[in-house]
């Protein structure tokens, strides 16, 4: 049941074969191992969204192959055979609350599974479970999704994707527009899904702190190309390269560089606040005599 994802020499052009053709992906080769947390970073317009739309064949490569588990997608793949893949790979798009349409929250969450042949009764059971999973109160299930707050609507939309019981969960900036508490709750949910259910996570994000805190693999996109891939530590070890590509550092790493200027020494550059504290604590006086 491992669902490794492999891209081999994937090219994609919008409006291929017309004078308006734009090449959005150029010779992409990558692998996403089952059960990992992959972050996709890059500027707006770098090809991140085009890339993830290949993960459940919303787009098919103009050339090259995408392999997801045992399913191979090429330009010739027939649209009729995509359904099992759509169930396997759940997609949470930007501002997913825009996809809600049913009369009640329960019906909306149960909509997806029913499209894949799950009976209404089973889908409703699944919906209730997923609503709990994303932290929606049971009293909301009979309400219209359009009466909920923005943050609640987003969780309904995410529950609707989780109800497909996917093996891979792809999220495109799932925290955009939320307040810090809402952002934290969504990220905690994603981490829990991965740890408890072994979901493979692919996350598009602009938040480098989230990359440092949660990801174990990073893909850096730029102008339709995969510029770099590696662990967060590898990616964030070259601040000049990141700046040149208009990407930032995690705040703890940025702060560590400032401390380096002030005389602190780092064996490895820290990515998180706790790593930072581990490195600098031994270099500090206990301070008990100066402070109480």
């Amino acid at each position, binding site marked *: 049941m491992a669902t490794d994802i492999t891209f081999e020499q994937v090219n994609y052009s919008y409006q291929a074969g017309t004078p308006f053709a734009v090449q959005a992906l150029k010779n992409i080769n990558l692998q996403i191992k089952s059960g990992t947390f992959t972050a996709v970073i890059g500027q707006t317009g770098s090809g991140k969204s085009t890339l993830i739309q290949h993960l459940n064949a919303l787009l098919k490569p103009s050339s090259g192959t995408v392999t997801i588990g045992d399913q191979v997608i090429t330009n010739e793949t027939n649209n009729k055979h995509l359904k099992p893949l759509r169930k396997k790979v759940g997609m949470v798009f930007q501002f997913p609350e825009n996809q809600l349409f049913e009369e009640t929250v329960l019906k909306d969450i149960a909509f997806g599974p029913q499209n894949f042949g799950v009976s209404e009764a089973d889908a409703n059971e699944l919906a209730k479970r997923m609503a709990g999973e994303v932290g929606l109160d049971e009293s909301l299930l009979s309400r219209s999704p359009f009466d909920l707050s923005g943050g609640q609507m987003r969780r309904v939309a995410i529950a609707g994707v989780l109800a497909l019981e996917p093996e891979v969960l792809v999220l495109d900036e799932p925290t955009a527009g939320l307040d*810090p508490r809402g952002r934290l709750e969504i990220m905690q949910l994603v981490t829990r899904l991965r740890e408890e259910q072994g979901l493979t996570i692919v996350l598009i994000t602009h938040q480098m702190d989230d990359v440092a805190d949660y990801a174990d693999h990073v893909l850096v996109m730029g102008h339709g190309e995969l510029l770099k891939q590696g662990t967060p530590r590898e990616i964030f070890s070259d601040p000049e390269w990141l700046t040149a590509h208009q990407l930032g550092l995690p705040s703890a790493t940025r702060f560590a560089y400032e401390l380096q200027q002030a005389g602190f020494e780092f064996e490895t550059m820290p990515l998180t606040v706790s790593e930072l504290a581990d490195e600098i604590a031994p270099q500090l006086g206990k301070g*008990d005599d100066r402070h109480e």
Partner: protein
Amino acid sequence: MAIIKVEHLNYKYSNSDTQAIDDVSLEIQTGDWVAIVGHNGSGKSTLAKLLIGLMAADSGKITIDDQELTPESVWQIREKVGMVFQNPDNQFVGATVADDVAFGMENRSVDRDTMVTRVNHALEQVGMLDYKDREPANLSGGQKQRVALAGIIAIAPKILILDEATSMLDPRGRQAILQVIQQLKDDLNLTVLSITHDINEAANADRIVVIDDGHFVEESTPSELFNHGKQLVEMGLDVPLPEKVKDALQERHIAVPESYLDERGLVDWLRTSRLNK
């Protein structure tokens, strides 16, 4: 002198049981940058809309630049206020960049020659002159927000209200907008009221007002407020990095100063602490 004065303001949405704004009073001084923070649904945006009469308060009094907000004065008050909203797309009404910048002036019956000059000037200020004839579909969110700011420069208001104007932008777009706003504030001596979740935007402010469930909670300087540490999340703000670092050090049994330090201040304190080891 207070350019914005709010006294005992109340507002309730007709489809809700609770007060969206509950007896809020506050004053904002001319030339200040004031941030209003609070978690989603705390009533911040409602307050902004009430201020320029986009919704009518149930009770209470609003005075802008010595003029009380009434149904008669509302248009005069809007002349003095420029407002940037959250969604870049839903405030771009012109067919092209230049048309959008001109929209506010058209409403004020500015003559065409003046409009042409001011459109060019305003676009130059926000670095969008090269995009003058572009259509909104070809612009990024950050560029659209810069155009919205140009539209405000063109009408030269006294007050700028930002209603989560940077929340839908990526970090670069956000930073660019904040720079433009800082510049404008200095050049035009604007009073800025920004409703925000962004810690950097709040840190730019002279004062921060915290609102929760429609109540006024407190008003303080950024460093006083950031001293709240983890409670900030409940107020709709991130915990600033220096507070996080201090927390982590404390867990490792290192005594840290209690008062808020900004990044610069924390670097200095750490450097001294290291040398005193």
